[in-house]
C-alpha cells in the first residue's frame, strides 16, 4: 500500500546537482531525476524496452514505426496525471522535444534527439516523431531515464537561454514518477514524498525518500552494510575484499548490474613523443615508432591476466573480457582467446617480430626500445591495474612508466591541457566507456579514420587510438545502412573484432558492472545497467529480514 513502509534512505556519494537531466549529463542526476520524471519507455535489466508513460512500445508490427523508418508514433496511457493533478498530454512530449532541441539551451541529451526533424502532437495522447532520414533505431528520444517528459506548463518559460534561470523548475520538476520532490539541496540532499497522483494507487510503498550525497564510495557502502543508516548506496566500487569484509556484518550486500562498460587499454598508434612540435604530437603526421607493429600490440594483450585483474579490482562486479562491445547478447562477439595469459607466447611473438632483449632487459629493434608511458586517471583500482600490467609487460621485455592524471583533467576535453584523454600524450592509456540504450552503433562509429583527434578538430575527435582502417570505415557505412537487427549485430561483431583481437588497437580488460549496495531490509531492488538504477523504485518495499 502506498506510503506504508515509512522512509527510504539512499546514499549517493556523488551528489546530484540538479533534477533536470537535460541540464546535466551525469549519471547521478539521471538517477535522482528518474524518481520523479519518467520517459515514454524504459529499459529492463535485460536490455529490453518496456512501457512507462506510453501505452505500448511502437514497432513495425503494430504500426508504431513507419515502414520507411522515417517516423515513430507513440501513444500515451490514458488518465496519466502530473503530480500536481493536471493531465499528461502529447503537448508535454512535444514541448520536451522542443526544450532539448533549442539551440541555445545547451541540452545535455541532445544526442538522443539527433536526426529528428519534427515532433508533433497527433492528438491529446498521440505523438509522432519524424526523422530526416530513415532511422534504424528509433528508440532514442523519450526512451530511458536520460530523456524523460517535462511538464509544459512548468517549463514554458525555460526555453533556450532561459533554461538555467529556472532554478525552481530544475530543482523541483513536476513529474509522473512515484515520488515528488519536497526539498532539493543541490549537491547535498534531496527529499521526496510519495506522489499522490502516481498511476498505480498501491505504489510506492515508501512514504518518503531521501537521497543523501557526500562522502566517498567506502563511506557510502559502510553506511549501508555496516551501520545500517541507509538502505541503498549507489556506485560502491571498492576492492572486493573490502566489500566482503563489510558484507560480513550481515546487514546488506553489494550487487552489480552489467551494461556495456568495459575497462580497456587504448594503444596510441601515433607518436606522442615530446620531440615533435606541439600540434604534431600524437597526430597521424608521426606514426608510432613501435606500437604500429601489430606484434607488439598483440604481445601487450597476451601478457595480461584479465582473470586476475578482475579478481583483484572488481570481484563479482566484473568479468574478464576481450570485447569492446560486450552486450547486448546479440552483439557480443565470442572472442575469448585473450582470456588466458600467455607470457611465453608474447615473448615468442616479439622475438619473431625481431624485438630482441637488449642489455638492460628491454627489447629493442633498430635502436628503438620498447619503452612506454602508461597513463590513466586517478583511481585506486586503476593504479593497481597499472602496477600489475607494468610488471607483466616488464616480464616480456617492455618497460613502462606510469602516470596518473586528475579525472577532471583527464576526462575534461580542455584543448589547452596536455593531459586529456583526447590529446593522448602517452603510449597507452586506460579508462572505461560505455554506450547508453541498446544501440552500440554510434559507439562503434567512433573508430573511423576521420574522427581521430587533432588540432584541426580542437582535439575533439573520438577516435582516441587514432585507429584508421579503410575496411573498418566501409563496414561502418554498411552498418548504418542496415536495418535488420540480426544483420546489424553481425556487422557489429565484425567491427568489434577488428578493433580488438585483429588489430589490438583497443585492449579490453574487464567488463564492468555497476556495483550498488543495498540493505537486506529493502525488497524489490533489481539493478539495471541499461536504465536508471531507480527504474523500479516504485516497487521497492521494506521487508523484514
Amino acid at each position, binding site marked *: 500500500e502506498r506510503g506504508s513502509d515509512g522512509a527510504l534512505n539512499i546514499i549517493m556519494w556523488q551528489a546530484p546537482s540538479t533534477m533536470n537531466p537535460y541540464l546535466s549529463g551525469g549519471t547521478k542526476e539521471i538517477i535522482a531525476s528518474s524518481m520523479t520524471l519518467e520517459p515514454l519507455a524504459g529499459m529492463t535489466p535485460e536490455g529490453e524496452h518496456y512501457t512507462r508513460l506510453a501505452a505500448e512500445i511502437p514497432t513495425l508490427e503494430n504500426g508504431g514505426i513507419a515502414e520507411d523508418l522515417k517516423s515513430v508514433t507513440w501513444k500515451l496511457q490514458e488518465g496519466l496525471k502530473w503530480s500536481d493533478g493536471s493531465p499528461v498530454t502529447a503537448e508535454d512530449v512535444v514541448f520536451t522535444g522542443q526544450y532539448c532541441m533549442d539551440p541555445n539551451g545547451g541540452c545535455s541529451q541532445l544526442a538522443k534527439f539527433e536526426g529528428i526533424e519534427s515532433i508533433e502532437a497527433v492528438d491529446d495522447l498521440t505523438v509522432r516523431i519524424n526523422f530526416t532520414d530513415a532511422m534504424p533505431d528509433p528508440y532514442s528520444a523519450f526512451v530511458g531515464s536520460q530523456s524523460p517528459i517535462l511538464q509544459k506548463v512548468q517549463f514554458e518559460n525555460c526555453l533556450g537561454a532561459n533554461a538555467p534561470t529556472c532554478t525552481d523548475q530544475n530543482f523541483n520538476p513536476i513529474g509522473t514518477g512515484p515520488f515528488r520532490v519536497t526539498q532539493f539541496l543541490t549537491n547535498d540532499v534531496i527529499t521526496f514524498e510519495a506522489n499522490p497522483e502516481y498511476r498505480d494507487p498501491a505504489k510506492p510503498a515508501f512514504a518518503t525518500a531521501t537521497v543523501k550525497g557526500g562522502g566517498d564510495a*567506502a563511506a557510502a557502502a559502510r553506511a549501508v552494510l555496516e551501520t545500517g543508516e541507509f538502505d541503498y548506496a549507489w556506485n560502491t566500487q*571498492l*576492492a572486493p*575484499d*573490502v566489500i566482503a*569484509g563489510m558484507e560480513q556484518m550481515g546487514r546488506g550486500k553489494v550487487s552489480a548490474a552489467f551494461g556495456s562498460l568495459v575497462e580497456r587499454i587504448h594503444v596510441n598508434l601515433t607518436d606522442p613523443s*615530446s620531440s615533435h612540435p606541439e600540434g604534431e604530437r600524437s597526430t597521424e603526421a608521426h606514426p608510432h615508432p613501435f606500437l604500429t607493429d601489430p606484434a607488439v600490440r598483440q604481445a601487450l594483450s597476451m601478457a595480461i591476466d584479465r582473470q*586476475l585483474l578482475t579478481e*583483484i579490482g572488481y570481484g563479482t562486479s566484473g568479468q574478464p573480457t576481450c570485447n569492446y562491445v560486450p552486450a547486448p547478447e546479440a552483439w557480443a562477439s565470442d572472442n575469448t582467446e585473450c582470456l588466458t595469459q600467455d607470457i611465453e607466447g608474447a615473448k615468442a611473438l616479439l622475438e619473431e617480430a625481431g624485438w630482441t632483449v637488449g642489455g638492460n632487459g628491454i627489447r629493442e629493434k633498430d635502436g628503438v626500445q620498447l619503452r612506454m608511458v602508461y597513463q590513466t*586517471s*586517478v583511481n*585506486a583500482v586503476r*593504479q*593497481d591495474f*597499472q*602496477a*600489475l600490467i*607494468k*610488471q607483466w609487460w616488464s616480464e616480456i621485455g617492455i618497460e613502462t*612508466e*606510469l*602516470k*596518473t*592524471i*586528475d579525472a577532471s*583533467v*583527464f576526462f575534461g576535453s580542455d584543448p*589547452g*591541457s*596536455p*593531459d586529456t584523454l583526447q590529446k593522448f600524450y602517452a603510449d597507452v592509456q586506460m579508462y572505461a566507456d560505455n554506450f547508453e540504450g541498446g544501440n552500440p552503433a554510434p559507439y562503434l562509429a567512433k573508430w573511423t579514420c576521420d574522427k581521430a583527434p587533432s588540432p584541426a578538430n580542437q582535439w575533439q575527435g573520438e577516435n582516441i587510438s587514432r585507429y584508421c582502417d579503410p575496411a573498418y570505415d566501409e563496414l561502418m557505412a554498411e552498418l548504418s545502412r542496415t536495418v535488420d537487427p540480426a544483420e546489424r549485430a553481425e556487422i557489429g561483431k565484425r567491427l568489434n573484432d577488428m578493433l580488438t583481437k585483429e588489430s589490438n588497437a583497443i585492449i579490453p580488460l574487464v567488463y564492468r558492472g555497476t556495483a550498488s549496495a543495498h540493505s537486506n531490509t529493502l525488497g524489490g531492488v533489481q539493478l539495471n545497467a541499461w536504465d536508471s538504477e531507480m527504474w523500479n523504485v516504485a516497487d521497492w518495499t521494506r521487508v523484514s529480514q
Partner: protein
Amino acid sequence: MTETERQHQLSVAETVDAAAAQAGAATALPPDDPLHAGGETRSQWRDIWRQFRSHKGAIVALVLFVGIILFVLVGPLIWTIDPTYVDIRARNSGFSAAHPLGTDQLGRDMLARLMAGGQVSIAVGLTAMIIAVSLGSLIGLLSGYFRRLDAPLMRLTELFLALPLLPLLLLMVTLFREPLSQNFGPALGIFILIVSAIGATSWMQAARIVRGDVLGLKEREFILAAKSIGTPAHRMILRHVLPNVLSPIMVAATLGIATAIITESALSFLGLGFPPDFPTWGRLLYDAVDQMIQYPSRVILPGVFISLTVLCVNYIGDGLRDAMDPRIRGR
C-alpha cells in the same frame, strides 16, 4: 698599573675559585696572580650544541630521527626487495620471514615500501618545509621590518592565501611537469615540482606570524641601539631580528613537515605526485584507510612513521630553540 696587569687582576677575581677570591678580598686589593685571560668567544654553534646535548628529549629525538633516516637510506641496501615488485601470490600476507611487515593488496613487500616511501616523504617533507619556512620568514621579516615593503608583501600574502589551491596545483602540473622532467629527469623533475608546489603554497602563515612579531620587536630599544651603531638593514634582520623571532619559526617548521608529508600524498591524487606505483608514507596511509579493518598494520605502520618523524622533528626543534635562547641556556 698597566692595562694587562689590571686585566689579570680582574680575571683572578672572576675565577671560580672562591677561596682565593675571598682571601684576596679580605686582605688587600687583588693579588697579581697571572692567569690566562679568556678572550675569544667560543663558537656560538659549539655552545648551542653543548646546550642541545643536555636536552634529553632532543637527544632521544635526534637519535630516533637518525635511525629513521638510516632505515630509509641504508635499509634498502640490506633489504633489497624491489618496493614495486608485484608478487601476486603473496598478496595480503601477514608478517612472515619473507615479508617481515607483510605485503599489500598486490603482494608488494611492505618493509621495502616503507623504506622507499620514507625516502620520498622525508625528502619532500624537509625540503618543502625549508622552502616554505624560509620563504615565509623572509617575506615576514622584510615586510615587518621595512615599512615600505609591508603593504605590497602583505597584499601578496593575502593573494596567495586566497588562491584556490587545487586549480593552482593543476595549473602548475600542466605548465611545468614536462619541462622539469625533461631538464632534470622524471624523478628529480617531479620532486622539484612537488616541493616547490608545496613550498609555494604554504609559506603564508609563517610570513604573517613572523611579521607580527617583527612589528613589535622593531620598536624595542636594542634595535634602536643597533641602528645607532650603523648596523645595515640586512645584518639587523639577520642578527637582531631573526634570532628573536626564531621560536614561532621553529613551530611553523615542525608543523610544516607534517603538512608537507600529508600534502604530498594529496598531490598524488591530482596526478601531481610521483608515479602511482611509487610508494610514499602519505600514500601508503591513504591507500590503506579503506582496508583498515582487514589489515590494520597497513595503516598503522605508515601512520607511526609519519608521527614519529614529526615528533622527532618537534623535539629537535624544541631542543634547538632552548639551546638558542640564552636565558634558558645554562640550565
